[in-house]
């Protein structure tokens, strides 16, 4: 997810190549079970090389630190979707927050993520009439 501002203005950096092999006889079989909704999720996701959240409930697990797939974090807490962000080219990013240590991370959405969950997450700031109404009134 690391980009500097120069490359974001010119061209997007290509996605990081995955050098840890979770598939093909890696440390786990070809799928994982979501820690929040217990869905069995396969690791190959359309549109991304790093499946890092459940396509059904968008929850993730705090296992990586900076680089996707490095398995460097020793927290292992459940990460819940907190908000939605957008890259300058229009790609959506889910902001995850670890429920155990409060760490934040930004992850690209995958092609098979639940659209209803994504839109509910994107609409969350506008769904509350108190804050959104105050913001609109002061405009």
């Amino acid at each position, binding site marked *: *997810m*690391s*980009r*500097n*501002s120069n490359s974001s203005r010119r061209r997007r950096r290509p996605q990081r190549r995955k050098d840890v092999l979770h598939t093909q006889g890696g440390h786990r079989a070809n799928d994982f079970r979501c820690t929040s909704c217990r869905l069995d999720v396969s690791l190959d996701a359309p549109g991304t090389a790093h499946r890092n959240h459940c396509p059904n409930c968008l929850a993730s697990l705090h296992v990586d630190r*900076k680089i996707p797939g490095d398995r460097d974090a020793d927290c292992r807490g459940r990460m819940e979707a*907190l*908000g*939605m*962000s*957008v890259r300058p080219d*229009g*790609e*959506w*990013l889910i*902001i995850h*927050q670890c429920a155990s240590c409060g*760490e*934040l*991370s*930004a992850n690209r*959405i995958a092609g098979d993520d639940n*659209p*209803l969950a*994504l*839109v509910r997450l*994107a*609409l*969350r*700031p*506008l769904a*509350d009439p*108190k*804050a*959104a109404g*105050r*913001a*609109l009134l*002061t*405009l």
Partner: protein
Amino acid sequence: MSSHTNHNTNTTNTLSLGTFACAWCGLTVSAYAADGAPRNHCPSCLHSRHVLDHVEGGPSDCEGRMSPIAIAVLRTGDWMVIHRCVRCDELTSNPVCVDDNQLILMRMAVRPLAQPPFPLEAFGTL
């Protein structure tokens, strides 16, 4: 001892009267909002500065500019601004001040819906 107390009063004075210049728009901002809450981002452009280490606590040596990327909602309904450091890609969340630029806040809140990755027409039937 007297110099020590002098030093202490100096720091409290500079803290109570403190201002900082925004790293993005250059606006001179008072370090405390009108209701006494400490400010950590510019109320005009919402940009911040990476001076606090979020993970370990204490000061950070990055000092990079942090740009606002998202709005998050707490369970209480309060809005938080998610900042990302442009130098080290650290993410932080900060509460929204009362005098923050509501236009930029609202623009960040509705920006996902401006460019949806899938057609939103199907949700009309739900």
